[in-house]
Each structure stands twice: as C-alpha cells, then as structure tokens.
C-alpha cells in the first residue's frame, strides 16, 4: 500500500503533461486526416527527433546555441561583474553612472538585432554581441547590490591592512559575494539561453532557433514540434543544473563562513 502511494507520488508530475500530449495527439491526428499540414501529432515529432539526433543536425545546432550563449554570457557577465564591483565599492561612481545605466538598461535586447546584423553580418559575432548586451545589465545591477551588502567591517579591515583597490576587490569583495554571484549567474544563464534562441528565430541563420524556423517554413510540423520540445528540454536541463550548482555553492560557502 505504502509503496503504491510512493509510486503514485513519483508518477504524479508526469500525469498532467501526458494527458495534454495525449489530447494533442488525438487532435493533430484528426487534423492531419482532414488534410492539414500545419500540425503534427507528438508521435510523429518523436520520430523526427530521433531522425535529427541520428543524422547529427540536432547536436550541431544545439552545440552552436549553447556555445554562443555561454560565450556571450562570459563576455557580458564578466564586464557586468567588473563594473558592478567598481560601482558597488564607490558610491560616488555609482551616483555618476546612475543616469546612463538607467537610460541604456531598458533598451530591449532584440532591438539591437538589426544593428548587430549591420555591424557583424550573420553568424557567431552578432549573436554573441546581443547575448552579451542582454546579460550585462542584470549582472551589473545584482553584483552592485551584492557588493553594497558586504559586511562593512571587512572593508574597514582591508583599509587598515592598506590593501590596494585590486587586492580589495579580489581578496575581500569577490569571496564575500560568491553566493549572491551564483544567484545572478543563474539568472544570466536563463537570459542568455532565451536571447540566443530568440536571435536565431528572428535573424541569425544558425542554431536551434533557426532549425525550428526552417522546419516550419518547409512545412515539416513534426520536425518543428520536435525542436520545440528539445529546446524546452535543453532549457530545463540547463536551468536545473544551474540551480543545483547554486544550491551546492550556497551550502559550501555557508558551511565555510
């Protein structure tokens, strides 16, 4: 009885999506029987997915999107981290930069797609630039807030010891903000992935977003649905991994402190 209840609990998260998928399967099959070529049942999508996985196109596009998102995040988050530490340590600099940051931050990253197209053409660099822009701002704001909350006594100690600004940043501030840094990084990863796929759907002819767009345009709804599901799985896996990493880091730093 108890084991039955446990199995029931373990299966519960799957029941709702399976019912939805089942309904969609029936609906799409009926639509296909009536001659629609816009919808495909999930079973056909699964077949298309296996096909794409076997011929390698799946992995190539996935690697492009993930790689670009990671590189863009590295650039954007790195710059955001540096500027955030600087602005967090110096209230005066923060006041000076306030207006400029508030003016540039709300520019939607997708508005820069045409500009990046003009500057870099299609390819890796344009996507990198947009991902970096999109991840720079949340990182800057969160790091700045984190640095402001560093225990003031630590900063006093560093002043007493006569540490230089660089030593202070790397030996005192950076270790102190690590747990919050990982929270910011988790957000950055989510943003980077979403923006990368968006850029591919809107313009850049590479990666998962483009593969999905081209499947739709060539009337291959099964393949398009397969890509949609795969993008969802990849996004979920990356976010779950970041969440675990952040939790692990918080526990480690908490135990050490």
């Amino acid at each position, binding site marked *: 009885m108890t084991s039955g209840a446990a199995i029931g609990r373990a299966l519960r998260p799957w*029941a*709702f999506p399976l019912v939805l998928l089942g309904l969609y399967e029936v609906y799409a099959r009926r639509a296909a029987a009536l001659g629609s070529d816009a919808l495909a049942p999930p079973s056909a999508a699964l077949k298309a997915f296996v096909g794409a996985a076997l011929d390698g196109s799946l992995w190539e596009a996935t690697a492009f999107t993930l790689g670009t998102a990671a590189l863009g995040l590295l650039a954007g988050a790195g710059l955001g981290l540096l500027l955030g530490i600087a602005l967090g340590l110096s209230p005066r600099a923060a006041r*000076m930069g306030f207006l400029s940051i508030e*003016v540039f931050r709300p520019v*939607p990253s997708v*508005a820069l797609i045409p*500009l990046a197209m003009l500057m870099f053409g299609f390819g890796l660099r344009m996507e990198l630039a947009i991902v970096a822009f999109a991840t720079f701002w949340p990182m800057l704001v969160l790091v700045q807030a984190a640095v402001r909350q560093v225990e003031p006594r630590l900063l006093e100690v560093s002043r007493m010891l006569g540490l230089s600004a660089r030593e202070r940043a790397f030996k005192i501030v950076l270790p102190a903000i690590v747990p919050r840094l990982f929270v910011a990084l988790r957000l950055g990863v989510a943003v980077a992935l979403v923006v990368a796929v968006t850029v591919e*759907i809107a313009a850049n002819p590479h990666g998962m977003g483009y593969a999905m767009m081209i499947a739709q345009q060539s009337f291959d709804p099964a393949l398009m649905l397969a890509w949609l599901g795969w993008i969802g799985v990849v996004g*979920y896996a990356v976010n779950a991994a970041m969440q675990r990493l952040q939790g692990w880091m918080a526990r480690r730093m908490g135990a050490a402190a």
Partner: protein
Amino acid sequence: MKAQGAAGWFGSLAVFAALVALWWAASNAGWVSRVFLPTPQATLASLAEGLNLRDGQGNGELLGFTQATVGRMLQGWLLASLAGVLLGAAIGVSPAVRAWVQPTLEFIRPLPASALLPLAISIFGLSAGMVLFVVAFGAMWPVLLATVHGFAAVEPRLAEVARCLQMPRAAFVWKVGLPSAMPDILAGMRLSMTISLIVAVVGEMIASQSGLGQAILLAARAFRASELFAGIVLLGLIGFASNALLAVAEKKLLRWQQP
C-alpha cells in the same frame, strides 16, 4: 535606487553628456563607419521627421509604428496578466491541483516565448492575432507562476482562520489569497511587461506586422542607420517609461503593506 542630491544628479548628467559627446565625436570624426553609427544630429533629425515634430514636414511614420507596438505590448500584457492571475489563483488555491500541475509549469517556464512563434505561425498564419497570442502567452508565465507562488505562501494561520469561519473558496481567494499574493503578482507583472515588449518586437520582425520591430529591421536592411537608431531610441523609451510607471504603481498599490 536611492534618492540623490543635486550634486549627484549633476554628476550623472555630466557622465551621460560625456557619453553622448563621445558618440558625437566618434561619428562626426569618422572613427567608426557611419554605416553602423549615425551622427546624433542625423538620429535626432530622423526622430523629428518620423514623429512629425517639425510641423508639416515629417511623414509621421514612426508615430504610427510606436502606437502599433505599444498597443500590441499593452494588449498582450493585459491579457497575460488577466489569464495569469485567473489560472494562477485556480491552481494555487488548491494544494492538490498544485501537486499535479506545478512540475509541468516549471518545465515550460524556461522555454523562450519566441520559440512559440513558429508553432503559432503554423496554427494561426502570419497575422496580427498570431503575434498578440504569442505576446500574451509568453508574458503570462511570470504572472502565473508568481500567483501560484503567492497563493502557496499564504500565511497558514490566515488559511486556518478562513477555514474556521467557513469562508467559501471564492471569498478566500478574494479576501485572503489575492491580497497576500499581491507583491508577487506585481513583481511578475513587471517582468511580463518586459517580455511583452520583447516578444512584440520579435513578432513584428518575423510576421511583418507594422510596428517598430519591422521598421528597424527594414531600416537596417536598407542601410538607413539614422532611422534604425531612431527606432532603437524609441524602443528604449518605451521600455523605460513602462518600467518606471509600473514601479510607481507598485509602490502605491503596496503602500498598505509598509508599517
């Protein structure tokens, strides 16, 4: 951010002016090709012409595009907020439903809203309604999840009191659940406004619906950098204004919470 004195404002204005001056110098002296970086004067001229500021001389195109984009964004956002709060309250009020449905919601959350565009195109075709649907659907998730979270975090003692008073479920939602979930809902609505703008712009780019998204894409394809920059400036202004308005509204609506 904190309120600042006059000196602070002066300093930050000076930095901003310096950045604009740098732009002016870089574009006028030709350090950066004007194909990418128009001069500030040219951008302002494009803005004035497009917004019909110089009476009678402009074509007023940008004004119409801005209205179209803002309209799309607001409609999508309102629909998303309404649907998000309703569905979120329905899911959040019952722990049983939550246990069944929440894992699926968590799975869909990281999915980029724009990834739904191809699916929506194949179902609805390239129409304004399709873009609106994707904007609303994509922007619904932050509100929905925030509402579910807000309902799940209702102070247990309040729930017990409601049970003791034999409050009907609808009254519980209206009198206890929604007020205590309000901060979460408003935060979700702010996020969903940002998403609405982004998805509206992407939708206009892909589905060729008239609006700023399409305008800047066409300007870039025709190498008209000053019009492109004018569009980016307008989109930045829309983002800035909507965010600022929501921040003010949030402060007003949540005033009762402050001690």
